């Protein structure tokens, strides 16, 4: 296995890989979904596919917050940036994501006041130091990030900050998993559960997956050994006919999650009746809305937001890739019109997007010049 000496316990990695080969029945094809984009990135980076037997297929899930945001929300956010009084702030991950009229970075190049922040705290700091302007924070992310936005809004209220608001695009992971399980063209045997989302929500919210859907799920860490151990745990459950929630990442993920974070989220957010996801369509109760008590810090209520709906570029198949129905390389644009340097779809932008991960680690490797073949015989 590549890079193996950089890893923790290389011998254990070898033994774990042997265990996977022993547990995987040759006559059976296993389809396991890693929900989290960080896991997708790790799987490609570590070349795990080369270690696993060919009948274990890893399907990339919807857990990349940048990737699942429909283009219309980016345009709605950027419409706010057009206002001369607004300083538009977003995480760096968002800056190159294409909207219908260009990415936030391209809007910045056209002279709009678009700034990268690394923390929502920095957005309220900008509001404090620019009292004559209004700072909009474009919030994205699953439950890993939503508590930080919630605490930021609590701090803004405590200070009585008047020139700050959040354009909230926070989504929740459980309804997305449900939508995937309900999708008729998807057959899965089990899930590798997200690591850092679970530090917040804990393991209980996954119990229905085991109980009602009879699918095992193992919350996993991000190192190669973590991922391989999680696959062993899934295979053992499948072998024994069990379907349970297990926690491989106990060193970071408490079973009950982070209660303070959950309280902050509950105080500031309620569930939207429905929200549109790229590729998955409208999913009920799948996203967070800022509660009425915080309306004066909700950009959607401070300003009028059009609620733009934009269809993705026709040839791009981001939706199918996002659902795990197509592999990145099966999209017509992959590696041609759509590359990390010139992304057409969001999955090619974020390092957690499956297209960018596949391109950076598989496509570049496969397309590297091979001198022995290039030379005339």
């Amino acid at each position, binding site marked *: 296995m590549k890079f193996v000496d950089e890893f*923790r316990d290389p011998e254990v990695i070898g033994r774990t890989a042997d265990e996977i080969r022993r547990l995987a029945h040759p006559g059976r094809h296993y389809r396991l979904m890693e929900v989290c984009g960080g896991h997708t990135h790790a799987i490609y980076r570590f070349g795990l596919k080369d270690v696993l037997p060919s009948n274990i297929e890893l399907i990339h899930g919807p857990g990349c917050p940048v990737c699942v945001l429909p283009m219309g929300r980016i345009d709605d956010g950027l419409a706010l940036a057009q206002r001369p009084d607004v300083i538009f702030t977003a995480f760096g991950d968002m800056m190159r994501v294409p909207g219908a009229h260009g990415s936030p970075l391209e809007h910045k190049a056209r002279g709009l006041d678009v700034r990268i922040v690394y923390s929502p705290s*920095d957005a309220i700091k900008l509001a404090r130091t620019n009292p004559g302007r209004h700072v909009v924070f474009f919030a994205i992310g699953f439950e890993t990030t939503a508590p930080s936005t919630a605490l930021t809004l609590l701090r803004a209220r405590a200070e009585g900050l008047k020139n700050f608001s959040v354009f909230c695009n926070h989504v929740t992971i459980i309804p997305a998993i449900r939508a995937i399980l309900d999708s008729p063209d998807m057959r899965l045997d089990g899930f590798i559960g997200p690591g*850092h989302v679970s530090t917040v929500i804990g393991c209980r919210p996954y119990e229905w997956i085991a109980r009602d859907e009879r699918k095992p799920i193992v919350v996993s860490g991000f190192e190669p050994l973590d991922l391989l151990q999680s696959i062993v745990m899934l295979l053992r459950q499948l072998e024994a006919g069990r379907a349970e929630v297990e926690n491989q990442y106990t060193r*970071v993920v408490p079973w009950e999650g982070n209660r303070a974070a959950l309280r902050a989220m509950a105080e500031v957010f309620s569930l939207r009746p429905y929200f549109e996801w790229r590729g998955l369509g409208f999913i009920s109760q799948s996203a967070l809305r800022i509660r009425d008590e915080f309306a004066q810090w909700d950009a959607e209520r401070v300003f009028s937001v059009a609620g733009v709906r934009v269809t993705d570029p026709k040839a791009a198949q981001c939706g199918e890739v996002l659902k795990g129905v197509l592999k990145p390389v099966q999209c017509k644009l992959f590696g041609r019109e759509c590359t990390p340097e010139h992304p057409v779809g969001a999955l090619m932008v974020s390092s957690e997007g499956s297209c960018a991960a596949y391109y950076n680690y598989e496509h570049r490797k496969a397309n590297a010049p091979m001198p022995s073949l290039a030379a005339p015989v």
Partner: protein
Amino acid sequence: MCLAIPGKIVELVADPPLGVVEVTGVRRRVDLGLLQDDPPQVGDWVLIHVGFAMSRISEREAEDQMRTLRILGEDQAAMDEVRGYQS
């Protein structure tokens, strides 16, 4: 975005609960409000995400996490994030 950065708390600020953390030699303030049920002390290690400490970890886990970031090629981006924190 869902990867977290390990840091060691070197100073506490009371209200709101903030802490100065050190991540491979770089010191920045982070918000400790999400750990208020079990407040960390100076010398403790935490995982940081978008400027907020989200869980307490051991020193060993902090080393593991830093190595994970390094082998994922995300260590530079992580340090850019830490250096980028303004508060």
